[in-house]
């Protein structure tokens, strides 16, 4: 199939055409075009399978991951790519996601081990499966959010706002570690925190990982309401 791709930025548009299978992704297409000799095409990418969160772009008007968007899924007509909003555009669709990462707290629940033999055994549940059944039953897992910033780009709030991903991080942390998350919770309730959300739920619709940040924001706001009535 022939596809035509247009990259639109403040500085103008660039047009590319290529022959590719509809199964290939937008990222594949850019890779084909660039390795074919187009030196001025810049874009972020790393994992090529929706895990690293670097390849977001606005594709035909919607923030999506380029590596998970197949050419054949977009219908006929020119495919229009724009850089994600609320991020610093470097060139073409390449952005520097500084604002997103400035807003995200380090709420990771996976922690360092102390490297001892005992730690390895504990870290690896089955070795002591019989002794400590709850460890065996619950393997460790990274959070779903890949910090791609699509939700932030889709969010209609234009005033200062830490954004849906940061709110989701905070809420997940308060659920997992209620004892240590009071400061974070306070952060979430500053004017540019959860109260800034307009409840449009675009974030939940757009998230490629099913994190549903809108749901987490609602839950955050509920904690305040519940607490508020108690006073």
């Amino acid at each position, binding site marked *: 199939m022939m596809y035509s791709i247009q990259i639109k930025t403040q500085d103008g548009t660039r047009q590319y055409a290529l022959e590719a299978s509809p199964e290939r992704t937008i990222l594949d297409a850019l890779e084909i075009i*660039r390795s074919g000799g187009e030196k001025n095409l810049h874009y972020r990418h790393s994992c090529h399978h929706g895990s690293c969160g670097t390849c977001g772009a606005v594709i035909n008007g919607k923030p999506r991951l380029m590596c998970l968007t197949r050419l054949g899924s977009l219908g006929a007509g020119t495919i229009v790519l724009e850089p994600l909003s609320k991020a610093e555009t470097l060139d073409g669709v390449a952005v520097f*996601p500084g604002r997103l990462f400035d807003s995200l707290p380090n709420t990771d629940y996976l922690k360092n081990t102390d490297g001892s033999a005992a730690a390895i055994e504990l870290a690896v549940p089955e070795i002591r499966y019989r002794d400590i059944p709850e460890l065996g039953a619950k393997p460790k897992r990274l959070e779903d959010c890949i910090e791609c910033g699509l939700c932030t780009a889709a969010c209609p709030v234009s005033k200062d706002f830490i954004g849906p991903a940061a709110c989701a991080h905070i809420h997940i942390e308060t659920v997992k570690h209620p004892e240590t998350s009071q400061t974070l919770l306070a952060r979430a309730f500053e004017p540019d925190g959860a109260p800034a959300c307009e409840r449009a739920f675009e974030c939940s619709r757009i998230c490629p990982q099913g994190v549903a940040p809108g749901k987490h924001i609602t839950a955050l706001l509920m904690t305040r309401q519940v607490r508020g009535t108690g006073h």
Partner: protein
Amino acid sequence: MEALYDELNAAPLPMPACSMKKNGYHICIIGGGGTGGALAYDLALRGFSVTVLEKGELTSGTTGRHHGQLHCGARYAYGDRNIARECFEESVILSRIAGSCIEYNGGFFVALTDEEADFEKAFIEGCLESGIPARKVNKEKILAIEPRLGPVKTGVFVPDGTFDAFRLPMMFFSAAKLLGARIMPWHEVVGFDIANGRMQAVIARDLLAGGRELRIEADYVINASGAWAGKIGEMAGADIPVTPAPGAMLAVKGRLVDRVISRMRPPSDGDILVPQRGLTIIGSTQRVTDNPDGILPTEAEIEFLKAKAEEMIPGFTNLPVHAAWAAARPLAGSRKHKVGNTVESAVIEDVEGRSLSRDFMILDHAANDYIEGFATILGGKATVLRAMAEKTANFISSALHIESECRTASYSLPSWREYFRGGRS
């Protein structure tokens, strides 16, 4: 020791580690993958000034695309116990310094055929002799823990893990940046200034500034460009025997297993399943190409991988393909090259396809191509990135006749997010 550990933890700036005594030497690293990131951090921690040049975004080469298996070394134990031992040591170190991006859940080597079951004894022996605590687990227990696995005859539990292939190297880049290293993505190396048998400077283009040329002088230049190493070598007139060898991987939606699943046999194509968040990945394959840029998986590779995954997890082929992609290994060839002599574990062999040693090597271009102040680091695995950096930094130090000590195993790494915080540097 403990105090410093906290200092590196205590991001953001200012942190005392930053005012560390500089030794006055400037090292330029070509390639912003895991190898370049780990080396930048190690060198910065030793007091070197460091510049990293990467033509795209950081980790846009092979790093970031691989399975994300934290190798405990079991995969290599039968073939090469030194490689296996190093993997195990490094996987434990990473679990200590980069725990926030690691799912340390272990792995099973499973036998699906009689031949694989017969391999079990030698396999366990290899692991134990390499210091890897491998344990036989009966098939009922394996199936209770990983119920989606197919007809398993027997299996062995090993301390494998998985990690976020993007976040782990970015933690090293964050640390390097916090220690003052100059990290320059979107800068493509296009040439060198070599005079009087010595590397003088690297010539790079700032791709975001219309290709404006920069000259970066350095006391030592390290080529850490992975599958691109041969191309960099050509620019310098150095013979670097490497062929880019793409390997394909495929992911389906659904976390079908929680641990890494490997076939109980010497490493082969399509023999590993790795869970990543809500995905399951099968890998990989191997072929060779001239150009590591823009590599994509072929239809045949995709079909092959599906069939291999189906052997381990019946029903796999019925699941929709989430993504299929490829990453390039730098395949080494046997040549006249001398290996940097501080690198004990380095090997160069006559290699063909998978018989390639997965270990890493340092090519000293002073010895091989009469260019002082220039070396290439090749091979390895993402799991051993810290060890590769340690050996390379030792090598640079001895080439520059200075004393320095590796301390990267002692400190907790800052968050990967740190790299993107506080604006562009």
